[in-house]
């Protein structure tokens, strides 16, 4: 029987994490739930545990990329067939996991499906600020051109991967701007992914890691990272290649 894992990265999400876990249990009962407590200073891990999730605690904050990668490492080590990322702030509706799963299982050639809030017929479920939408559209345009396929929601954190995606992300996951760079990583590794329309909600608690004043600086950094990523000699680490952090010194 196939095994499914829901990876929930949470950093100081005490207010919402228990709801997310119980909604996952209620609406996506086939999925085991793993909460990654990324060095929270509140009682996020206690609340997640008492809601019935497995909890992996980082000794200090690594950032969203490190947190999600820990989840993929867990999935790879425990032999899960499918893993899905669900944000701990409650903006992803666990009711749509069924659709994503059905799509992934109906198309065995796909390695990843991403939930896009901009493909949905009624985009009413989620309202983001105008500059943020503009930023997302710029990323979407740049990425669509690079990967040669329409990408509408490059910052979506709702993505479901099969065994090849799990294996890749467990070995190599971008640290700094994981959502945008993961799209490039899939492309560089010639894994196939597709977007599926979903509705997203307002976050139910906590604060977003990206606020509006810093988003311009964030955008410049991400575009630079995307640009440098295009020229990478070794876009990803394949089995048998030197480790990403090799014991090699000097210039």
């Amino acid at each position, binding site marked *: 029987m196939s095994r499914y894992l829901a990876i929930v990265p949470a950093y100081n999400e005490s207010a919402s994490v228990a709801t997310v876990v119980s909604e996952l249990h209620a609406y996506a009962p086939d999925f085991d739930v793993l909460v990654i407590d990324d060095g929270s200073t509140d009682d996020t891990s206690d609340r997640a545990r008492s809601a019935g999730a497995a909890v992996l605690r980082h000794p200090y904050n690594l950032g969203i990329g490190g947190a999600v990668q820990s989840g993929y490492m867990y999935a790879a080590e425990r032999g899960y067939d499918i893993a899905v990322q669900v944000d701990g702030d409650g903006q992803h509706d666990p009711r749509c996991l069924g659709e994503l799963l059905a799509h992934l299982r109906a198309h065995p050639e796909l390695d990843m499906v991403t939930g896009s809030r901009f493909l949905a017929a009624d985009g009413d479920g989620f309202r983001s600020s105008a500059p943020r939408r503009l930023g997302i559209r710029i990323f979407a345009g740049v990425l669509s051109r690079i990967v040669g396929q329409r990408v509408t929601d490059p910052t979506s954190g709702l993505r479901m991967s099969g065994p090849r995606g799990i294996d890749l992300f467990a070995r190599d996951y971008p*640290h700094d701007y994981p959502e945008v760079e993961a799209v490039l990583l899939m492309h560089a590794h010639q894994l196939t992914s597709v977007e599926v329309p979903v509705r997203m909600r307002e976050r139910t608690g906590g604060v977003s890691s990206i606020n509006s004043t810093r988003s311009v600086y964030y955008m410049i950094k991400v575009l630079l990272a995307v640009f440098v990523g295009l020229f990478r000699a070794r876009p990803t680490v394949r089995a048998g290649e030197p480790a990403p952090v090799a014991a090699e010194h000097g*210039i």
Partner: protein
Amino acid sequence: MDVSRLQLLAIIVTAGLFVIVFELVRQRRLMERYALLWLFASAVLLALSVWRGALEELATAVGIFYAPSALFAVAFGFVLVLLLHFSLVISRLAEQTKILAQRVGLLQHEVDVLRSRLGEAEAGAGPSERSESELTSSR
């Protein structure tokens, strides 16, 4: 104005720096987050050494008579910023390493306690359970 030997040297050195930093990022030996400052610094220095007019304007604006000295002043400013940046990074890394060591210490203690409890349980129980516990401890 013809290109002086000093200017040529400055262009070669700053261009070399830019290429080295870019290449290190490309080979994934230098993370983007630490490379941005380097790329910015070497790009500015390269621009100033190629575009001599801007350098001379900058020199007169701050009262430096010999324009190439202004290039050294700018480079020195970047070196200071980079060093401060490294001090910040090192401080964070030191803090994280300390937390890791403390966590490992606590985990080691936990393992020791569990192991001695396992030993007690093994001594109390019959030999039938032994093979299973040996398997666990050898892992």
